């Protein structure tokens, strides 16, 4: 077991644990924090996969901007206490069982998929570098890139329409 593998397992466990904590934490703020932890571990994975640009973006956009926004909203609403009333335990159980079953089914279905034998390059390959990604983005993917501006425009308009107090 080399360092890469150790890192991989460490990050994986951290991600999964973080994710579980997101789901199980009573306090929303804790959830947010665990989610950030998860995101960091995912970013770690990105770095492991040599997708440096995405790792950075993930940390900046997700862990940084988005999660802060979440935190902000939660704080704003004063939800940092354990405000969530008890949900029906059976429903919780049902939800957990359903999700678990889904996981099992997925894994059972995909464990012998067409690409089982293949591996993902770790630590090598330069497609994840900013230079390459940028070139591709502004050549081949320029149309979608431009189109995503529409998305942002509408999100902006939406934020105005919805968020502005009358």
């Amino acid at each position: 077991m080399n360092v890469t593998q150790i890192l991989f397992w460490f990050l994986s466990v951290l991600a999964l644990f973080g994710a579980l904590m997101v789901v199980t934490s009573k306090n929303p703020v804790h959830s947010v924090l665990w989610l950030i932890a998860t995101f960091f571990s995912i970013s770690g994975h990105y770095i492991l996969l040599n997708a440096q640009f995405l790792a950075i973006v993930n940390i900046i956009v997700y862990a940084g901007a988005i999660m802060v926004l979440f935190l902000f909203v939660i704080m704003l609403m004063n939800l940092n206490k354990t405000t969530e009333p008890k949900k029906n335990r059976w429903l919780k159980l049902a939800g957990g069982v359903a999700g678990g079953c889904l996981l099992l089914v997925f894994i059972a279905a995909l464990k012998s998929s067409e690409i089982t034998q293949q591996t993902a390059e770790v630590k090598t390959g330069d497609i994840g570098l900013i230079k390459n990604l940028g070139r591709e983005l502004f050549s081949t993917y320029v149309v979608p890139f431009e189109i995503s501006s529409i998305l942002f425009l509408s999100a902006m308009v939406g934020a105005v329409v919805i968020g502005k107090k009358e």
Partner: protein
Amino acid sequence: MQNALQIAWLIPLFPLLGFLINGLGRKHLSKSAIGVIGSGVILASFVMSIWVFLQVKDGNTHVADYFNFISVGDLSIPFAFQLDQLSSLFLLIITGVGFLIHVYSASYMHEEKTEHFGRYFSYLNLFVFSMLLLVMGGNYVIMFIGWEGVGLCSYLLIGYWFKKAEYNKAANKAFIMNRIGDLAFLIAIFWIIKKVGNVNYHDVFQFAGENKFSTADITGITLLLFVGATGKSAQIPLYTWLPDAMAGPTPVSALIHAATMVTAGIYMIARSNVLYSLSHTTMNIVAIVGLATALLAATIALKQNDIKKVLAYSTVSQLGFMFLALGTGAYVAAVFHVMTHAFFKALLFLGSGSVIHAMGGEQDIRNMGGLSKKLSVTYFTFLVGCIAIAGIPPFSGFFSKDAILLSAFEKSPVLYGIALFTALLTAFYMFRLLFITFSGKFRGTHEQEHHLHESPAAMTIPLIILAVLSIIGGFVGIPEALMHGGDKLSAFLSPVIKPHEGTPVSHSTEYGLMALSTVLVIAMIIAAWFKFRNYQRSEAAGFGKVLENKWYVDELYDKIIVNPLNKFGGFLNSFIEKFVIDGVVNGVGRIVNYSSRQLRLLQSGQVGSYIFLMVLSMLVVFVLQFFLRK
């Protein structure tokens, strides 16, 4: 002189015109005009019929196709008339007797409102028209038209006084019972069409003559035809309508019972004698049913108190005799009896009409008595009728009945015995009727007594004519035993009806039988005289009660057919239709509604449950797709 047959279509046309004129003009014509038109058209037909008869007598027969009534593919049914010995004879009876009844009616019904008077005559004319169609028709379908036509007219006439509910019920009964028979007739026609491809008498008989019918076919066809005849001619089991049909005006009863309608069955079987002769089974059944009817009706007639009911049952009984004759192969005898019966039964009915007229509508003989003094013409003619029907020589009934008894004897002595017994009963109840009505003391109310009077000439003259006919009518068929060549009728009908092929009895036996029946009949009359000359009202009891209630046959029919049918209909209507069939249909609607209400609950409004259901269905699909699908 050939052209009488060419223009024979005038015969039914006259009554039809009369029907139309009287029917449409009933509000505008005067009573006398209606009477004259109504009777006149029949007279015209009668004259034409005589003309036709004379031609036919010379040996000319004629089948006239006028137009295609129905022509489909291979099936072609012409609107055709057939004028031959049999039909011309019936024409004479129908129009002749019919004319007398019309004349009589004009007087009898004079009290009616003009409008109804016109209606009455138009019905009568239509009746005659239908009957003429029946006998003139050149094929079974045309016969069937007339056949149903007389059924309709009897319905209309029986229910002539439509305000009275029970009359209408009687009319309905007549029509429906007839329809049952008609259905059988129709099926027989279909059968014939299936086998012969045609319904013309000529073709059918030729087909039969060549023995192309299988036994089953011929038996089936003849039996079905016979069932048809039982409806129209009031035989067991379809006879109960006829006594009820007395609801109509008395001349109508005369017309139904004497000249038209009930003789249709006889005519039909006589007409189809070629077919019947091929099937012994049917013949036996016809004979037995006929005899049974004759006996049954005679027993019932013994205890009836309504003057017309007695006559009605006597008609049923006499018709039974005719069927007995047909069943024993003595077609001519049957036709002969039709003729004589037409005379004396018309006479009796008209006579009873005269009595009823005199009694102011009273029909119960228990309330009569001693009428002979006031109603002498009626009395004497009625007496003639009774003697004729009882069968005392040389009155007409004797000869015809004798012919029937003889043929029964030839067939089987048992038949003969029962037939003779029935004949004796006939004599007994007829004279019972006569004596109760005309002898003894008057038992009616004072008013009625005051009102008693002999009927006007327009009514008595037909009576007299019919009385004369009843006396002499039998001479066309004097048995060979009595007079060589006396049986003119058989000779006349021989082209249509093949002479009877039985084992002839010796003349001496014949004499013996005649003597026996005559003596016994006279004995019965004398017995009746002693019993009923001074009739006192008494309640029937025991067996008499059963007879008075007509063996409870009507009640039986009600119990086993009418009521179950009604109940079943009600059950279908109120249960099956409403709950089962409609229930299924509405049930589908209800299920939809119910599932709508339940499915709606799935839409709980909870995001969690929505996602849960989505995840669940994803699970199902994945499991099925990956692990269960081949």
